[in-house]
């Protein structure tokens, strides 16, 4: 729907197997160093931390229950008790904003995490072993890629009667692993014939050890970059699914269902307090994650030094 993970990846990581042993600094540390020099990215890290802390500490900022309804307080404007007013079920918008942030971030993060797990696992299998394993995994990926993400996700969500957060996360992860798998496989294929891999095999290192010690570290750049950007995309996707009624249902608050609830002319005009805060929250969060992703890319992609 929004940006595609694969397109974010500008280039393959440079293989710097030698530097691992020579210097005390691993490529990872070098990248971190470069990252720290990117002011926007660093600031974004702080912004994200700030948002996370506010959401985690939600009970400190509000004593309202985000799920409690009140028939006597429907669509009220801001008041001392309800700083951002209430929604169509009399739920407190401010507490929904804070608790909703938790859910949105958790959904974004865990969907990213599971996509990563599936993608890295399958990508590693396919890229490392090649042959039949590769063939099967890649055909499966191709089939998944034959349908637009949303089409597949909608069909699955329509079947499941009770959408909980874990189920929602798994649906996203299960429908979006193929891109990542392809990227990782591609990276591995270029590594397979490298000398240091032959060397490791020669001294009898196990497959798992080779993958963990040599392959994953070399693919860490694209993995991290994609992971960040995926998280941003998922937060947007959750809101889009909410809008068409396929998101995480009430009473659980999310930023996505908060703005999609407000999507009609009357609320847009008369209750800006109901939709601007969650809209801004999504905007700032996604923006910050994108900055971080950018910073990561620059940091892991040595070419960017030239700029």
């Amino acid at each position, binding site marked *: *729907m929004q940006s595609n993970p694969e397109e974010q990846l500008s280039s393959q990581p440079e293989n710097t197997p030698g530097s691992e042993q020579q210097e005390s600094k691993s490529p990872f540390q070098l990248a971190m160093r470069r990252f720290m020099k990117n002011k926007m990215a660093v600031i974004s890290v702080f912004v994200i931390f700030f948002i996370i802390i506010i959401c985690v500490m939600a009970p400190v900022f509000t004593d309202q229950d985000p799920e409690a309804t009140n028939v006597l307080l429907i669509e009220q404007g801001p008041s001392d008790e309800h700083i951002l007013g209430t929604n169509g079920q009399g739920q407190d918008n401010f507490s929904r904003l804070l608790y909703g942030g938790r859910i949105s971030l958790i959904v974004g993060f865990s969907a990213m995490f599971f996509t990563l797990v599936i993608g890295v696992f399958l990508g590693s299998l396919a890229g490392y072993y090649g042959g039949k394993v590769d063939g099967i995994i890649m055909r499966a990926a191709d089939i998944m890629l034959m349908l637009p993400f949303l089409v597949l996700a909608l069909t699955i969500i329509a079947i499941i009667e009770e959408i909980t957060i874990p189920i929602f996360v798994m649906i996203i992860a299960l429908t979006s692993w193929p891109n990542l798998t392809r990227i990782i496989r591609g990276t591995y294929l270029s590594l397979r014939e490298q000398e240091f891999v032959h060397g490791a095999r020669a001294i009898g290192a196990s497959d798992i050890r080779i993958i963990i010690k040599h392959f994953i570290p070399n693919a860490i750049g694209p993995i991290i970059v994609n992971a960040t950007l995926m998280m941003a995309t998922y937060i947007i996707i959750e809101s889009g699914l909410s809008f068409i009624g396929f998101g995480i249902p009430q009473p659980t608050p999310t930023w996505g269902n908060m703005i999609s609830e407000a999507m009609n002319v009357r609320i847009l005009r008369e209750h800006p307090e109901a939709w601007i805060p969650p809209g801004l929250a999504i905007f700032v969060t996604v923006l910050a994650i994108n900055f971080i992703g950018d910073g990561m890319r620059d940091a892991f992609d040595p070419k960017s030094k030239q700029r």
Partner: protein
Amino acid sequence: MYKYIIRRILVFIPMLFALTVIVFGLAMAAPGDAISGNELADPNVDPEVYEQQREALGLNDPVPVQYWDWISSAAQGDFGNSLVYNGRSVAELIEERFANTLYLGLFSLGITILVGIPIGIYSARHPYSLFDYGATGFGFLGLAIPNFFFGLIAIYLLSIHLGWFPAQGTLSGPGQSGFNELSDRIHHMILPGITLGLAGTATYMRYMRSEVLDVLGSDYIRTARAKGMSDTNVLYKHTLRNALIPIITLMGFEIGVLLSGAVITEQVFQYPGIGTLFLNSVTNRDFPVVMAIALILGTLILIGNLIADILYSIIDPRIRYD
């Protein structure tokens, strides 16, 4: 090359088959059916009537039988009749909306390319200028706003308040022709087109910028420059060709992204395309329509990727297909 294309197509057929099995399985696993519909039954209608219709439509048959019925007629190009729009053939329903989605998709892809690429190039040639900052800012904006949100705000401000663009639909009325129809159609497509193309434009722009910057900074360009070629020359002779390669891969992908986006964008603008039809059919369990759309979209995406591959090899002759 031809061999490659033929092989891709041959691989594609069993995949398509697998796809139909998956989608059919999913459709059948869903509780409820099209006869009970998304609306509650009319209380004045005897439920026995609905049961008779189920029987007549074969909805009570075992799933493999239903699948066989479907695939055997689909193989002959007959996608059957919609269960919800009673009596209407699936092919007709899809045809009607397919053109709309195609126009919208092409229009928005056009915006994406015509806006995204030039801005990206310009930004790269004038890095750190005010324009560059503005463009980058826009790029982030495009990626950070959910598109239904952008669309509705655009309707609210530009259609309802300012009256510049129509808020809904594809045309202002039936019975137009020629240039009038074309301009009316385009007028209607501007808002949904921008909404749909927003994220894509942003992606292309940022992408193009960084590619061009990369190429401009690379050794061979420096050499070319040193040999006295003008910047513009260098840019068009060497840079663009290289920068376009990844953009083309992107475009192959873009089809799927656009179709996904269409589901939501079409909903906001009540734009009668494949996206709204799909959404409706999924919620109403109108599985003949769902299946047909899945098949068509799958085929489209494959073709998109195939075209991307072919373009790829035209632009960069070094790339070979065995």
